[in-house]
């Protein structure tokens, strides 16, 4: 049995099913309140149909059975369009079904058996269907199978028959194995490898589920010609899963000529195997491919090598001082193409946050139902692109935060109305690029954080280290991120165990990010996740200091200018500052910070770059600006990081000529600059 499930097929199945489930979830959530339109019903039906088919093929019977039940329900909706439909209940059922399937797929992914019990869900769906039928006065047509035509389809011969033998096989599947038609299709599909010509009856096994019953009763009749030996053919059929009985017999005269001569001739001209056509059509509009991330990593490394190799050729010292017009022309073209290629390769890794954000919609919906609250979730900037690796890491923290917001933040409708707020709470989830970071802001208009309560709890748990009167509001709020802190007395299903928030900080910190919280009592809470640029692609300005090159994220640069000597101020401690338009900024000499020799030390020989981080600014002194370039941020090797925590560096990147440039962490530098000033 395991032989039949080859690895790539399983991988494909998992990928496809996961995607379909996500798609389905969106459809259901979007239309839950308004009721499903005809289009949505069709869509859900199609998805369920596909899942049923593929699951049956992969022998995940519980998934397939559930999908079948749901498909039946939506088939009914599609065909008879009943008036009274309990949409919320239907949506609940479908969502429960989605969860079940997702769960099973997870199990399959981790190598376990998909053994979840489907009966309860299935009977729920069937019950709903029965209710629908009773209410709607359903027309009889739904359950009746379409008339089964006794027509045979023909799969074109590949070679002229010579010593071909003709066989006729009648296959009976075990009772109750379900999806007989799909199993029959598997038989035909596998047979293609052995046989030259295949005809089978009933023919429309893929698109008509009614044939399943027929095959169950009368068996599945396949006629085919093959050059293989009797034993090989028999062996193939005996491998069929759930095989109950097999009649395999040789046929003397060519059945393709005698029975279906005309059709065969007509069909033979068409090169495509007709039996496959339906499937191919169903898959036709697929414009997405899934690629393993390691392949993308490899691709990016190779791209880097290509750019370096290109520079090695076009700037080869052997070519120096030579007049090579044609070569230069060709080299320019090559440069243009590699540049474009580089852009594409870089953009491939970026994934919009949309899927993660949309997942949150489901979380909010479920919680509202359970807690009997009304919450509207608004998504802003879900098209913001983030590196794939980062997306995976922030999904869980986001979920925690959303749960907290709904559970602790948003008040029940009655309480809200008493406060003069709209009964429905509003949660906004926003993503945007901000300088060298991606900011994810979660805002709610709930009751806000209670400073006194937090402080009291912090005191209780011995978390307060400082004098309480010195604590700023922000410091008090940040207590909620400490392990073991939870102000909620009651532990609910969703939150209140005091693990959520510190998991958030831990997860975000693991990608090098940070979490900020701000709140106004009675008006709501804002939580900001700052995800660093590591792994992301940034527009960088490359600057030179001596022989070393550094990259500054363009978005953090405010301006650059040639300093005048009279603007420089040095305080008694030797700290340098510069006056720009009446404001005073600390100066950070990169050559001193990074110990670069042979760099300009006179301010008039170099250039000042003013950089911003949050509200603070600082002037960075460098030798010259080299140019703007899109760079991939690579993390510093772990070994380096384990030796010393290097402040002021966000990572490194490869420049076009293959040399390494260190990316400066503006936030870190600003801190350093101000600390210097404070000393």
């Amino acid at each position, binding site marked *: 049995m395991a032989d039949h499930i080859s690895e790539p097929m399983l991988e494909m199945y998992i990928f496809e099913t996961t995607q379909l489930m996500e798609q389905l979830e969106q459809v259901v959530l979007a239309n839950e309140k308004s009721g499903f339109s005809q289009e949505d019903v069709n869509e859900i039906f199609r998805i369920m149909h596909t899942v049923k088919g593929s699951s049956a093929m992969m022998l995940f019977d519980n998934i397939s059975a559930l999908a079948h039940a749901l498909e039946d329900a939506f088939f009914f909706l599609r065909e008879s369009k009943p008036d009274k439909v309990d949409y919320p209940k239907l949506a609940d059922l479908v969502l429960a079904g989605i969860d079940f399937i997702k769960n099973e797929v997870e199990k399959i992914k981790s190598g376990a058996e998909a053994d979840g019990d489907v009966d309860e869900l299935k009977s729920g769906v069937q019950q709903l269907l029965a209710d629908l039928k009773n209410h709607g006065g359903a027309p009889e047509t739904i359950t009746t199978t379409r008339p089964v035509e006794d027509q045979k389809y023909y799969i074109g011969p590949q070679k002229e028959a010579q010593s071909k033998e003709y066989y006729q096989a009648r296959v009976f599947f075990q009772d109750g194995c379900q999806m007989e038609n799909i199993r029959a299709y598997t038989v035909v599909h596998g047979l293609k490898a052995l046989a030259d010509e295949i005809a089978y009856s009933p023919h429309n096994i893929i698109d008509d589920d009614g044939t399943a019953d027929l095959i169950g009763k009368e068996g599945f009749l396949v006629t085919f010609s093959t050059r293989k030996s009797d034993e090989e053919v028999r062996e193939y059929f005996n491998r069929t899963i759930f095989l109950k009985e097999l009649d395999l017999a040789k046929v003397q005269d060519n059945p393709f000529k005698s029975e279906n001569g005309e059709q065969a001739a007509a069909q033979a001209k068409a090169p495509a195997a007709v039996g496959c056509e339906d499937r191919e059509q169903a898959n036709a509009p697929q414009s997405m491919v899934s690629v393993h991330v390691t392949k993308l990593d490899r691709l*990016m*490394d*190779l*791209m*880097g*090598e290509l750019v370096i190799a290109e520079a090695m050729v076009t700037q080869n010292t052997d070519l120096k001082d030579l007049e090579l017009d044609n070569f230069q022309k060709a080299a320019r073209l090559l440069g243009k193409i590699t540049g474009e290629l580089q852009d594409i390769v870089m953009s491939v890794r970026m994934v919009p946050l949309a899927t993660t954000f949309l997942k949150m919609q489901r979380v909010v919906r479920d919680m509202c139902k359970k807690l009997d609250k009304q919450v509207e979730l608004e998504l802003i900037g879900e098209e913001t692109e983030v590196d794939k690796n980062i997306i995976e890491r922030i999904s869980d923290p986001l979920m925690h935060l959303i749960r907290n917001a709904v559970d602790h933040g948003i008040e029940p409708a009655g309480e809200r109305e008493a406060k003069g707020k709209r009964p429905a709470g509003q949660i906004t989830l926003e993503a945007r690029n901000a300088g060298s970071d991606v900011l994810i802001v979660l805002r709610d208009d709930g009751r806000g954080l209670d400073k006194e309560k937090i402080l009291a709890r912090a005191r209780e748990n011995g978390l307060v280290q400082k004098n309480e009167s010195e604590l700023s509001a922000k410091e008090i709020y940040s207590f909620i991120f400490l392990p073991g802190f939870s102000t909620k007395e009651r532990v609910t299903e969703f939150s209140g165990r005091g693990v959520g928030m510190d998991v958030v900080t831990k997860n975000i910190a693991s990608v090098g990010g940070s979490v900020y919280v701000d709140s106004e009592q009675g008006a709501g809470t804002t939580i900001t996740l700052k995800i660093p640029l590591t792994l992301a692609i940034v527009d960088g300005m490359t600057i030179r200091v001596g022989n*070393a090159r550094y990259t500054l994220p363009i978005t953090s640069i405010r301006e650059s200018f040639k300093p005048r000597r009279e603007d420089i101020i040095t305080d008694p401690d030797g700290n340098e500052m510069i006056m720009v338009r009446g404001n005073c900024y600390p100066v950070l000499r990169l050559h001193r*910070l*990074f*110990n*670069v020799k042979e760099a300009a030390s006179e301010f008039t020989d170099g250039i000042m770059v003013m950089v911003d981080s949050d509200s603070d600014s600082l002037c960075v002194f460098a030798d010259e600006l080299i140019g703007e370039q899109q760079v991939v941020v*690579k993390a*510093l*090797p*772990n*070994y*380096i990081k384990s*030796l*010393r925590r*290097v*402040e002021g*560096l966000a990572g*490194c990147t*490869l420049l076009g000529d*293959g*040399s*390494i*440039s*260190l990316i400066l962490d503006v936030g870190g530098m600003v801190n350093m600059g101000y600390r210097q000033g404070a000393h």
Partner: protein
Amino acid sequence: MEAARDFLEQEEDTQKGKYLTFSIGSEFFGLEIACVTEIIGIQPITEVPELPEYVKGIINLRGKIIPVMDVRLRFRKPFREYNDRTCVIVVDIKDTSVGLIVDSVSEVLSIRDEDIVQPNELKAAQNRYIKGIGKVGGDVKLLLDCDKLLHDDEVEALEKIG
């Protein structure tokens, strides 16, 4: 049964007992071949600030960024200018790739286990990167413990405090 197991073990580890030897000054060292990924000439090194002196910085190894360590400085020997004999031995230990800068690479040798003696216990402080001393003909090769070479900073930190 015994013979079969021996055979399997041999099959499993054909690289066992093979050492890449290199020189620093007048001394010869050996590295287990299994941990060596490749040997490259000296590359332009990008310095990273605030690192111990013996970690010279990072290099670009075909798109992969790896740190390089000057073994001379690691052994507290004086720095010597790099020349065209200078090599970087890229080693991979526990998924960490590090380049080791050495004066020159000589050859790959087979040293049998019985020809390896334990370093003198008394001089343990100096020998902490040495796993054993291999005898090849009349010569002696100091066999390095890569793992210690890379991850022995705790000891160093303790020394500083002391």
